[in-house]
Structures are given as structure tokens and as C-alpha cells.
């Protein structure tokens, strides 16, 4: 079962969708097999042998989509701060991005670290979290040809979004640096460090700190 809204994506909308999922989970118990949210949609996977469709629809229609309490669209402080070693050695697109933007690499790094990003959605790969929104000056389309292999921990940007690749995979985003913090562990509950609804900020670290924190070159 899918629900959508015409409301444009915002942290408040994401919190409203998360609150809806939490309510449905409480109402349905084990009849809710799984749930997920997108930027402005919610997906509920329901065992209709345990709950009647009509009953659920009537319960859902009586519920308003609203965030719990007041949820600011700008973070007061980050939930998680991620260290990043920004350098062409691990950020192959740092210099070309500096050229396209007309900013120095230091300015690009400062801009990327200057604000908290909101975790709107997960997907693409386990633990991959779509964070937004980037400063307009850093917004560029994806690479025309995706790289066949992006290193685990790569910190990248594309359009209005930024993300960390939790594990090595193909990828078409511009890579600025690398984060030494592991973000995904199948043996942990939850397996992903970043969760939808988190505010995330990046902070620059040196090569030495990166290696000390367990970062791999």
C-alpha cells in the first residue's frame, strides 16, 4: 500500500511520514510486514490475512499527516558529526569541482562543512543515506559516466544531495573525500549508523587523523 502527498519534501514532512509509520506499526503489530518512506511517499507492506483492507483504510483516512510537535526545517545541532579527509588523494573530483565552481578547494570544503544536512531517505545500497540540501554553489549534475568502483567511505555530492558510500560500489557522484567512520554493520541493530530524520554534519580532518581513526587509503 502506497501513500503519496503533493507537499514538497521537507524535514517536517519526513517527520510526519515517520510518525505515521510508527502509528501504523503500533496499530497493526505483526500485520505490518515492513514499511519505508521516500521524499514524499510512504510504503506499507501489510499482511492482509491479518487485517482487513477496508478496516485499515478507514483507520488511515481518519488520521492526519502531521509531524509530532514542532520540527524545524533547519537543524539547531547535528545528531551525528562525520569526520572527512578532503584531499585529491581520496577525493578525485575535488579539484575539478573547484575549477567548475570557481572556488578554491578550501572554499569547497568549507561550504560542504558549513551546514547540517537532513537524512531524507535511504536506499541504493544498504546504509546509503540521501542527505540534503547542498549549498546552491555546489550543486552539479552527476558524472556523465559513472565510475565502476567508488571506495567505501567516499563522501560525494550530486544535484542538491550529498552522501557517504558505505561500501565499495559503482557510483556517479562527485567524490570530495573519505570518511573513516564505518556506517554499516550487518551484525548491529539497526545496521546503519545514519537513520532517516537525522541531521548530519561533516568536519574536515587531516590525513594523519584519518589514518588514526582507522581510515583506509
Amino acid at each position, binding site marked *: 500500500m*502506497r501513500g503519496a502527498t503533493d507537499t514538497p519534501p521537507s524535514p517536517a514532512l519526513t517527520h510526519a511520514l515517520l510518525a505515521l509509520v510508527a502509528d501504523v506499526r503500533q496499530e497493526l503489530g505483526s500485520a505490518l510486514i515492513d514499511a519505508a518512506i*521516500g521524499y514524499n*511517499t510512504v*510504503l506499507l507492506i501489510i499482511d492482509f490475512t491479518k487485517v482487513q483492507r477496508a478496516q485499515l483504510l478507514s483507520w488511515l483516512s481518519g488520521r492526519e499527516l502531521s509531524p509530532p510537535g514542532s520540527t524545524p526545517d533547519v537543524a539547531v545541532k547535528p545528531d551525528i558529526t562525520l569526520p572527512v579527509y578532503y584531499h585529491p588523494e581520496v577525493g578525485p573530483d575535488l579539484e575539478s569541482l573547484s575549477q567548475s565552481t570557481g572556488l578554491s578547494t578550501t572554499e569547497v570544503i568549507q561550504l560542504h562543512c558549513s551546514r547540517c544536512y537532513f537524512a531524507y*531517505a535511504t*536506499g*541504493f545500497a*544498504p546504509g546509503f543515506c*540521501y542527505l540534503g540540501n547542498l549549498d546552491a554553489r555546489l550543486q552539479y549534475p552527476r558524472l556523465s559516466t559513472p565510475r565502476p568502483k567508488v571506495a567505501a567511505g567516499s563522501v560525494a555530492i550530486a544535484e542538491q544531495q550529498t552522501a557517504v558510500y558505505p561500501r565499495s560500489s559503482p557510483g556517479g557522484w562527485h567524490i570530495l573525500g573519505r570518511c573513516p567512520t564505518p556506517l554499516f554493520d550487518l551484525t548491529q541493530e539497526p*545496521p546503519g549508523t545514519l537513520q532517516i530524520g537525522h541531521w548530519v554534519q561533516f568536519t574536515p580532518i587531516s590525513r594523519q587523523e584519518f589514518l588514526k581513526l582507522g581510515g583506509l587509503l
Partner: protein
Amino acid sequence: MTSLLITQVNFSATLQDAGRAGYLMDGITCGGAMDGFAHRLGQKLVGNPPTSASIEVALGGLKATFGDCANIALTGARCQANLNNQPIAQDRTVTVPAGAKLDIGGLSLGTYVYLSVSGGGFQTNKLLGSRSVVVRDGIGQPLTAGAAVPYKSMSTPLLYVHAPPSESTNEKPLELRYLPGFHKDQATTQSINLLESGCFSVSNRRDRMAIAIDGDKVETGVTGQWSEPTVAGAIQIPPDGRPLILMADRQTVGGYPIMGALLSPDWRRLSQATPGTPVVFRSVSESQAEQILWLERNYEHELTLGTQIRLPPKARHVAHE
């Protein structure tokens, strides 16, 4: 505990169960048997719950040696299978002595064969509540020669047979009934008509993630939408207009327009269909879908009714035939 020693895999073989639920918001796909029905029949034949793990062999071709006695069943795609060089039947329990060599050969119909074993199924470690392997995401490993897959030995022969599933996947064309929705309201009438009247067939671009559909191009007219969670069986229309049906290992979010989702019985029939099989899309209403799914559940229930016969030791030769 003993184990099944894999000695040869021709294409791909993975451990699969009923799939992984509850982790979509972590970006973790469901996985699980592509043909869940065949997987469940197999588990039933060896006395296991449907959540037990079987070995899913894609396109046939697996050789293995049993460390100790067991009861096994082969369901799903039709294959040439031998146990110690003697042909064995599918869709029934087969009692296996210690050290027996199993050879699953080529397929004559379908795509995925399931090997189920008694004693609760294959006993690999669960990750996030499931033994289903998702190769793309590094969740578990595919089986290769030399792998030892643990299981619990069982010396009591089981004898359980059911009628082979009445359907076959070579019916032509394969009807794919779907529940419209998602972006169908935004799609052009022309594209919906084309989807329901066009000529399509199963492409050879297919894996556990998605099955591509060859044939007419479907232009939805839907543009500029936000990525959203995907469902199993979703009919996704990428910019090239070639429909993709999302399968067990689908990506958890996607940005392409979705015309609807296949009903689960047709979705799993599609998983067994071979390239070139003609397909037609037909939309159904929600009440029709509920009726179809209810009938399907009854069919599966009836097929697996009947009591397992656990023979006393002195009558064991009966089970061996």
C-alpha cells in the same frame, strides 16, 4: 550437525528463505526465494516451516555430496537430477544415505530449482533475521565449489508426495495481472493502452534484481518525480521505455515511474519464465486481486494438505522403494 559439500556450481546457487523483512528503511532489500511457492512446497515436503532455507539453483547445474543421511526434495524448475547416478523424481521426498552424491543437471522448463533438506533446512548463520543471500549487497556469499552448507542429519525416512503443480510456465503467452496505481494516474492513456495491448516478451537481461521486458516501448509521459520506495513486482518504466519488473533483490528506492505491481502469483511465474516467453499485461481491480490471491492461497494449501507419513524403522525399505 553435518554438511552438504558443494563440488560444482555451473551458474549461480544461493541460500534463500522467505526473505528479510523490517529493514527497508535501512536500504536492505527483501531477498528470498524468487519462486516462493516452489520454495514453500519444497520445505513442506521435508517437514520444515516455510521460513527454513533452501538452496536456489539458477539455470540448473549443481553437484554436491551429503555428509550424512537426510530427506530432500527438489521443486521449482524441471530438471534432470540424479542421486548416486540414479534418476530421482521432483515434488516428492527422497531419502538420502550418508555420502550420497547429488547431481542437478540442466533444466527442461523454468529457471530456478530449489533443494530443500529435512531437519529445519540449511543452517547457515542468519543475518538480520534471515539466511537469504543478496550477492549484490554483500549479504552472505554465493555458493561455490568447496563450500560446506550445514544441515541436521535425519535417519528417519519421510515419505511425502504431492501432485506436481498443475501449471507450467510454457503456457503462451504468460498473463501478468497487475494492480494499477502509483504513477498510472499521471501516465498518458496512450501508454496504458500500449502496456495492455503491446507485444512483449521476457528479455535475457534478467537476474534476481529485475527482469527486463522486450518489445514495444512504453512512454509514460511522467517526469520529474522524487525517489520513492519500491515494491516487489513493480512495473518500472525507465527513460528508454523498456519495462523492468522488480524482483526479489530489487533496489529499495527508485526514481522511475511505476505503472503498477504484478500480483504475487504472476510475479513468481515470471521468475520461472525463460527468455522469449511472450507476456501480456492485464490490470485488475483491488477486489479482483483479493479474489485471485485468496484462490491462490487455497490452491497452495490444498496442494500441501495431506499428512506426512513417518514410517517405523522396519518399514524403511518402503520409503527407499
